[in-house]
């Protein structure tokens, strides 16, 4: 089984990779999109003073 990696996926905000598996005939057997990143905003905004939230969560995506 042949494997093709598109890594990184480009021209988007964030990280991603695509892995494509080809069978013996060279046809696509399966393909996966994976997101290899995590920062954890869901956790570290817990308990943050509400007036500070706007300028913290704007750092989720700067695009």
């Amino acid at each position: 089984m042949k494997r093709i990696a598109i890594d990184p996926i480009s021209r988007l905000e964030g990280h991603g990779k695509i892995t494509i598996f080809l069978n013996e005939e060279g046809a696509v057997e399966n393909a996966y999109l994976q997101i290899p990143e995590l920062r954890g905003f869901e956790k570290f905004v817990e308990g943050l003073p509400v007036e500070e939230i706007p300028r913290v969560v704007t750092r989720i995506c700067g695009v």
Partner: protein
Amino acid sequence: MKLKIGIYWGAACGGCDVAILDTHEKLLEIADMADIYLWPIAMDFKYSDVRAMKDGYLDAVLFSGGVRNSENEEIAKLLRRKAKAMIALGACAQLGGVPGLANMYTREEVLRRVYLESESTTNEKGIMPLESSKEDGFDLELPRLYNTVKTLNQVVDVDYTIPGCPPASLQIYSALGLIADDMLPKKGSVIGAGDRALCDECARKKGEKTITRIYRTHEKLPDAETCFLEQGFICLGPATRSGCGSRCIKSWTPCRGCYGPLDDVSDQGIKMVSALASVMEPKEEKDINALLDTVVDPLRTFHRFSLASSILRRKKA
């Protein structure tokens, strides 16, 4: 000779990349100055292209984002080998940035919250990201999420730093000019920023500061002209490098320190605590404690951008 540069991001939001794009028509001058050999947000080069370069092939790499997982570290080390000058771009690469606040928790606490507990998560099977897994017989890999968010210089040798969250666009442009003109200062320098505290460029009026309590921004309307700190709003100006153009201050918002510490200050947050201590009116311990009780969430206030680089660094394991 045209420069060869690479632009990359670790644990970032893309804001530094957009700050480069926000040089607007000067982007054409940057394109005259440099050829770009990696820039995931805007161009299609792959890691395999970088691996194929000989060492030292790139004149400079601008690396934004912190080092949060094994992929960030692997690519940081790869780019370090390929670059003559490694430049930390922005607060996350320099200090860990806002994502560095995850160091208040363990890796497991972060993963549990994100993939199992959050109100918007549906994950009945409790599937968690794995470094290697088998899906329908196919082998898949993911980077390892680290327990600790690291700054770029905690994993590779960094030559220069352009601070800010995000760095002001014209500051990036001027820093690139230093590279192109071979005018870079001594290794380790901060470029594309001032060398004094933000207070020195802030237009608000400063007088004698005798703070009796701290106010949250919704508790009192600040006046238009006086220093925020003098009015009792925590403003990180005294502990923060100038160069941002007072963006937040001009928007009636006290500084949170994204431009990082001044030269020879190792811990920006502690420096701010020291600055605050020097302007408090109370002299008795009881009164000092009462004032400090009005500081809400001190860790994420004083170390908003710099926890990963501070002497506190992270929650004890």
